[in-house]
């Protein structure tokens, strides 16, 4: 069960796994996620389902090794198994024919964006994609995104690839160039989602964002993933993970993500010290 069939390095510390999970593969819809435990002593972490194939009974998980748990996962090879996988969790993305849909992805957030863009395309939308990365090496899934997009714009902070700048610059120039957007979807680092959301609010573009707060059970039992949306407390695991981006209290959500930063850094350092696996320990967001 949960056996890894394929392992593929997508870029700096980002790995795509194709894993046996027939029940999840048969039931998942775009926007949903799983919670995994890498080993029998691991913490539970949520990961988005990047893709699934019900015929082969496999799902794709994309993980960036930044902390102890994700570094342990990065050590897994084809034939190894992930100890626990539960899902699909969360509500699926609301996919319909909106007209023109703007998909904005940043960093590892491009992984969950891919199935959504694919779904939007299949529903008959004109899909415009903007992908942002700090630098060229950190850009993932460009070809996959290209295959489901009618137009694609890539931005890098350092100008090493595509247009130099931020995704928000690209949105501005798109709209000022006369492109009408009916719906936007944004998934990426929290700050990028916050600023994209502020901009699309200003531009009057309805926007969905997929949140990635801290979670344990994923069934609404612990309330650790609570976020404030439109002044109400919501549990991202069962009420989300997608919400109206313009209603999300981003500052509170971003702060809560930092709850265990000290513990996480200490654990990662201990892990590095213990196994000296030679992985790049630099945090990359």
């Amino acid at each position: 069960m949960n056996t890894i069939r394929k392992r593929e390095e997508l870029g700096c510390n980002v790995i795509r796994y194709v894993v046996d999970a027939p029940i999840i593969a048969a039931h998942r819809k775009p926007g949903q996620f799983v919670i995994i435990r890498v080993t029998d002593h691991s913490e539970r972490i949520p990961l988005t389902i990047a893709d699934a194939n019900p015929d082969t009974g496999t799902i794709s998980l994309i993980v960036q090794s930044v902390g102890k748990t994700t570094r342990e996962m990065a050590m897994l090879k084809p034939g190894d198994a992930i100890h626990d996988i539960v899902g699909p969790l969360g509500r699926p993305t609301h996919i319909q024919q909106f007209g023109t849909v703007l998909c904005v992805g940043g960093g590892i957030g491009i992984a969950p964006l891919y199935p959504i863009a694919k779904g939007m395309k299949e529903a008959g939308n004109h899909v415009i994609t903007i992908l942002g990365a700090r630098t060229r090496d950190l850009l993932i899934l460009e070809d996959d995104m290209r295959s489901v997009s009618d137009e694609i714009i890539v931005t890098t902070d350092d100008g090493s690839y595509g247009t130099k700048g931020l995704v928000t610059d690209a949105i501005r120039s798109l709209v000022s160039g006369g492109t009408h957007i009916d719906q936007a979807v944004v998934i990426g680092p929290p700050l990028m989602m916050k600023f994209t959301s502020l901009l699309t609010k200003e531009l009057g573009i309805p926007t969905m964002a997929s949140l990635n707060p801290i979670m344990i059970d994923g069934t609404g039992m612990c309330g650790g993933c609570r976020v404030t949306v439109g002044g109400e407390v919501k549990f991202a695991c069962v009420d989300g993970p997608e919400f109206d981006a313009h209603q999300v209290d981003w500052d509170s959500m971003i702060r809560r993500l930092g709850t265990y930063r000290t513990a996480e850094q200490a654990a990662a350092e201990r892990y590095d010290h213990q196994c000296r696996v030679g992985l790049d320990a630099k945090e990359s967001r």
Partner: protein
Amino acid sequence: MNAADRLKLPPVVMPEQEPAERIHNVREVPFGFTPEMALQEAQRCLHCTNQPCVKGCPVGVHIPDFIQAIESGDYLAGIGIIKQTNLLPAVCGRVCPQEDQCQKDCTVGKAHRDIGQAVQVGQLERFLADWERENHAAVIPQIPPTSGKRVAVIGSGPAGLTVAGDLIKLGHAVTVFEALHMPGGVLGYGIPEFRLPKEIVYQEVAYLTRLGVDFQYNTVIGKSLTVDEVRKDYDAVFIGSGAGLPNFLHIPGESLLGVYSANEYLTRANLMHAYNEDSDTPILRGKSVAVLGGGNVAMDSARTALRLGAHRVMVLYRRSEEEMPARKEEYHHAIQEGIEFHFLENPLEILGNDAGWVTGLTVQKMQLGEPDASGRRRPLPIPGQTSSVSADVVVVAIGNNPNPLIPAALPGLQMNKHGGIVTDEETMETSVPGVFAGGDIVLGAATVILAMGQGRQAARAIHAWLTRTTETAKG
């Protein structure tokens, strides 16, 4: 020994870990009776003909009979008597509120006009269950030939385990679906190790596995499989998905860093072993912890905070000591361990610093007014009397509601206004034919034994339902 002599015997004092020592570990607090102690306590039972203890037990355990077996030294017979009606005696002996059930109307307690003098039924039950486990004496019952019927049990908490145990013994195939990676439901994630060692729960589950129950972990019904798929594959379904939906106070500051629901706090500590310093699951180890609420979960949270190294732990409860719903034993243990109780204090706001971390609370001083719908005196604010307390971790332990995941996935299910599933009181059948429910998903957050009682009722009705449909099919 005659009744007069029996009445003269004092209750046996349960040996326990000293408070100063136990707040530094998560080992169980009471050590359990030795055989000598168990004998002495058993001799206190008068074996009354009216058996008020049995009437007080939600599952009707034949209490005087198993106590008699202890007195005659036949532990195997004793545990067999308990297991006729109670599948999980090692659990119930530890976590049942005996003072409100079997021990409440005990004739010995009545004779002494002190419930504290009642025969310690729970401790004797625990003694037999521990004896059985430690001596690997569990008897595998004769299971009738397979009925060919399949039953799906959703949730592996006390209700689900009871249904599974009862139905497997009647020859039905049983699959238990559990959302988490470990079994037990609230027995695993909620009740702390120092009150209920997880090894006990896991051994009970191992026993059911030996009987043939199939446990499927990491399976969320309504997500991993739809309820309709389960109904198609199984002849009957039991929903025992529990009251896992934490309430919050909806006061300012609940999103601050360091504010936990009791469920999250206890799950990190218990299920994910965050009480071990080297656990992969982090938990904030507050120095000054405020727990909001007055139930058993509040006691568990407060005592867990101590074991995570807190120097000061406060329980803030808006009513007085008298109305507090926590079990006396838990309250007593908490006091012994140095937990501060702030009665008649209602939190108004959780305070934080610029970085978003909790720094304390503003509390409103309360007084008691007329009794409310619950029969307890209603707490009312005393105008102008507010104060502040400092805390770096706040745990909200003000109760849970039924988890809505499965009801949302089965539209035809009739629900009550508290989010619980409506069932027939006798059969526990829901408004959907062939779907039964029990435990906290029906009761709201209640007790382990009531959940087991409903599981037993449901199992009986499911068996009847399965055999009835067979006859209909044949006819």
